């Protein structure tokens, strides 16, 4: 296996990042309906499974997922999702790269794990809601009393974060499984995987 990335690999990374971004935005639109906001991590990691699994068969070199993550978070940052996603996205994609390369981008369990970790960037997208919450309720409490502040706190409460992470992982596992199935059913037969 060649170690260094060539131009073809870089172009492939760009292509699959474009698809990933489009899938993300397509599902992200549903976030305007409040209840879907909570389901967003699940939907995004489920929907991105097919492209991601094909992506893994295309490049197979360390750094592929990191570059994808860097671009993805840049797009998210550039479209106004705040800075936390930059930090979280880079960490999760690097971790995901490490997991995947330890399985040589082939091992079944490790691709599923790597995919789940990679999708962790979605949490970074939602983090501003929780960061803002503290400073926000601080001023609210001083102006309006504890009762209302408490009700609002529970709506945006921190226990939602673990729920989001669980949804994310569930979506990731299902998405990865679907992706691998589709890979076998279509792409390998068509000779493009």
């Amino acid at each position, binding site marked *: 296996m060649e170690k260094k990335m060539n131009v073809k690999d870089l172009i492939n990374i760009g292509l699959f990042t474009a*698809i990933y971004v489009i899938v993300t935005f397509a599902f992200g639109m549903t976030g305007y309906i409040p209840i879907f906001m909570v389901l967003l991590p699940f939907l995004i990691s489920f929907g991105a499974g097919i492209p991601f699994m094909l992506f893994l068969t295309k490049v197979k070199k360390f750094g592929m997922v990191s570059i994808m993550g860097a671009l993805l978070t840049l797009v998210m940052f550039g479209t*106004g999702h*705040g800075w936390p996603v930059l930090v979280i996205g880079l960490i999760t994609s690097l971790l995901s790269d490490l997991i995947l390369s330890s399985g040589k981008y082939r091992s079944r369990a490790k691709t599923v794990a790597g995919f789940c970790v990679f999708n962790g960037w979605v949490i970074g997208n939602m983090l*501003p809601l929780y960061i803002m919450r503290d400073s926000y309720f601080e001023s609210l409490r001083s102006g*309006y009393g504890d009762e209302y502040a408490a009700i609002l706190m529970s709506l945006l409460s921190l226990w939602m974060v673990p729920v989001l992470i669980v949804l994310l992982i569930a979506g990731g596992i299902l998405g990865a499984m679907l992706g691998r199935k589709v890979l076998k059913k279509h792409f390998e037969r068509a000779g493009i995987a």
Partner: protein
Amino acid sequence: MTDALLSVKASPQAIKLDPRTKLFLMFVISTIMISGSIEGEAAYVRLVLMCVPFVLLLTVKRLKEALLYVFFCIVAWFGEAFLVYSTTGILNILIVMLSGLILRFIPIVVLGYYLVSSTHVGEFVAAMERMRVSQKLIIPMSVMFRFFPTVAEESRAIGDAMRMRGLGNKGFFSNPVTLLEYRLVPLMVSIVKIGDELSAAALTRGLGGPGKRTNIFRIGFGPWDVVLLTLVTAAAAVYLLA
């Protein structure tokens, strides 16, 4: 979609900013907007920064969007400053959530819109090269921007084909997974093929060659860049010290 990052020609603009300035603005404004409140000295900083996207929208001749932006900002600010204290119950919660969200995110979203609609891909690449970003990031990035319209076009064609065969979106609720498969698999196949062609074309044009590539776009800091950079840096300094 008229976004310039996706098209060949950028929209006409009165003030041309360096892409690096735009990125810096984005970073500072998104940081301060998300974490700030509307009380104390920080409120003035936020007010000043909220004007920046408005002025920038005007420079790319988006008057309608700019006015809409101002309208939303004023309503949300009013809501957060007064209505929060004079309403009760569910209404209060709704106002608090809505005005808080709008006030914190609209400026950033509008700035993002400006960033995308006023910057040409080539310009952005030139700026990245000037910032000594690795080619490993620049090449995939330009491919990605080049591909957004293509993916959208392919996806539309697939949608048409599905409708012709009576497989439109109506099966969505009964079988979302199958629908996802129907849509994504043909898309992937065509994208992979286009990707192969694109890399062949790019290689023949010398992408990835050892020489230094030139760029048709001239970028550099002008007086307006200096004005905005100073303004935003000063705002950040006040915000941090206050």
